[in-house]
């Protein structure tokens, strides 16, 4: 049975289930690399160009991990995720980066994913790829259908209440692939919970509210996930549903650096909630991160204790 490798990095955290169901429906065996370890991070850093961003380095580590474990590797080229939006250049060139990094990798398959295209023209790529794996036409069609069905559940907003009862709310904005990866984010969300605050994430903010806040900006943001982040952060700060916001980005992240500057400026103009930016790279140490979160949360507690007028989001 052909083993098809899927690196557990970047957009796998969002669309991984859809890709897995595609491979499974074809009767192939999906091989997903293990969760990020220090070793993966080190090998990724050693093999990638040194100016690449941290997620691409993590991706490379996972890719190299699959070298022996898989007969083919699937690196979809995600071109857009929403209408009128653009992906980060790194997603667009990811398969080409993967092919350039190592000569001895198994063949890399790079079907296009253009989610903004309502007529789903892009699934042709996937259909052709299924045929190349030796599937029959009907099996290929079934696999594509299974993927589209599973994609719908991937794209749906996460369920669950926006607020919780434990402590006060802190907005944690950042890319899914950083926050979902416990090694990369060093368990940021859990740490915040342990320290007695409840973190809110971008994926739980309704799209309607995100869009409403984005309309107030002078220039439209054209990056997919970054526009969601900015919309969510502005919603949190303007509705005062959080006591503070932590913005997590990775070093050399292009869109992240631009919206980081935008959020800082906008918060400064509106004089809204406190903001802390954390920039991650492969050298980030746990100690430094913990100290900074502790200090930030202490500051939020202190501020709201001295300000009885603070709204529902404030600390008790």
């Amino acid at each position: 049975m052909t083993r098809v490798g899927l690196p557990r990095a970047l957009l796998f955290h969002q669309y991984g289930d859809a890709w897995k169901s595609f491979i499974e429906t074809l009767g192939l065996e999906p091989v997903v690399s293990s969760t990020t370890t220090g070793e993966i991070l080190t090998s990724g850093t050693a093999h990638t160009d040194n100016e690449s961003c941290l997620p691409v380095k993590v991706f490379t580590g996972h890719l190299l991990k699959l070298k022996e474990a898989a007969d083919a590797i699937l690196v979809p080229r995600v071109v857009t995720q929403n209408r009128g939006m653009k992906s980060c250049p790194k997603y667009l060139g990811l398969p080409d980066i993967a092919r350039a990094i190592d000569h001895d990798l198994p063949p890399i398959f790079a079907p296009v994913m253009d989610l903004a295209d309502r007529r789903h023209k892009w699934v042709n790529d996937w259909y052709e790829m299924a045929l190349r794996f030796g599937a029959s036409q009907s099996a290929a069609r079934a696999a594509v259908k299974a993927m589209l069905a599973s994609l719908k559940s991937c794209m749906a907003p996460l369920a669950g209440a926006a607020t919780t009862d434990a402590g006060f709310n802190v907005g944690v904005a950042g890319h899914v692939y950083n926050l979902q990866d416990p090694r990369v984010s060093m368990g940021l969300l859990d740490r915040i919970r342990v320290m007695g605050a409840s973190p809110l994430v971008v994926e739980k903010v309704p799209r309607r509210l995100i869009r409403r806040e984005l309309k107030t900006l002078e220039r439209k943001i054209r990056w997919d996930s970054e526009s969601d982040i900015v919309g969510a952060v502005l919603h949190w700060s303007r509705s005062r549903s959080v006591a503070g916001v932590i913005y997590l980005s990775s070093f050399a992240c292009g869109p992240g650096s631009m919206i980081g500057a935008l959020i800082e400026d906008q918060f400064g103009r509106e004089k809204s909630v406190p903001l802390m930016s954390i920039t991650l790279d492969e050298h980030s140490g746990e100690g430094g991160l913990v100290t900074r979160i502790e200090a930030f949360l202490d500051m939020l507690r202190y501020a709201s204790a001295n300000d009885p007028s603070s709204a529902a989001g404030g600390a008790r």
Partner: protein
Amino acid sequence: MNITVPKCGSTEYMARDMCSRLGLGFVQAPEYSERTVELGVTLSPEHVCFPCKVLIGSSVEAIELGADTIMMAAGFGPCRFNYFAEIMRRVLEREGYSFRIITFDGPRDAPLDFFRNVRLIVPAANKGLAGMARDMTLSLRKGWAFDEIEKQAMAVRALESEESATDKAIAECLSVLDAARTRLEIDEAREWIADRFARVPVDLERPYIKVGLVGELLMSIEPYFNFDVVRWLARHGATVERSLHMSDVFTPLGRNPVLGYNTPEINKAASPFLCHEVGGHGHISVGATVQFARRGFDAIVHFFPFTCLPEVISKTVFMRISNEFDIPILSISVDEQTGRAGMQTRLEALMDVAWNSKMKHEERPGSSPVVAPRDRVPL
């Protein structure tokens, strides 16, 4: 209305020409200097990319000289550039400068916005919309001529048999081009330029190597950031061809009249290595590199700003191209901390490699670089 534009290659020449046609004031941003970079780095957010910082510094200098309107291009590309103008506006407003920024998106992407922006300039101009459009195309035509002068000069400088014969030709051509106003005059000037460069005395016996210069716009074009690499290479016996010219960038439909390859040709050349557009000029860098390698160039120099998104992708892809075409490629990332000495050492090493491989190829006549067949076909 005193207009200023980002200083990069022929942009300024075209903008000055257009403003003089329309009767608008034009303020030339001063040459890039240490002060520009320092101003930009001090004012701008830490993680935005180097060109953005430089443009912020340069805008401050232009505003100090009396500019009140900054014209910026933006576009809908995936690279950081599409948000430059907004960050610039926010930073300069925060610093308390009074100015207006007009951000032009591509007329094909957002025709209405483009039209609205042009209308902002109309009241100050002495012409209507139609006249303005005509003037724009004329200025663009002049930009082509300006870039052709640069292109010819790069090609011929290493071979000139008299000291500064090329510089003299450039000066003469520019004075002829400055005087040209109508379409006919500009076309005549272009012919005259080609003629004039054919008359530059060259030493055909002198051995030379061919070097391709690729990379991000500002870093590969502006001599301040690449430490005038074109002249440096010429002194080391290299004729240079550059992948990017400002007037090509502004020419619609991807025709690239100065470079000579249109966009489909470039995409096709890049396609085994980079099969999708990645924003900025990453695709052109890769495509032009492949074209240069196929044409038998001896080395490629690649300039890009630190952590530039598209060019870091090209840099990664260059590892593969360098192997398959057996051509040395030197990638140099530039930011405010780049020093002349470090760059010179690396360039000297590249020259050594290029000259050595050139000698080796000449010993075995008829031998061409081996291209390894690839089993991986991109989907």
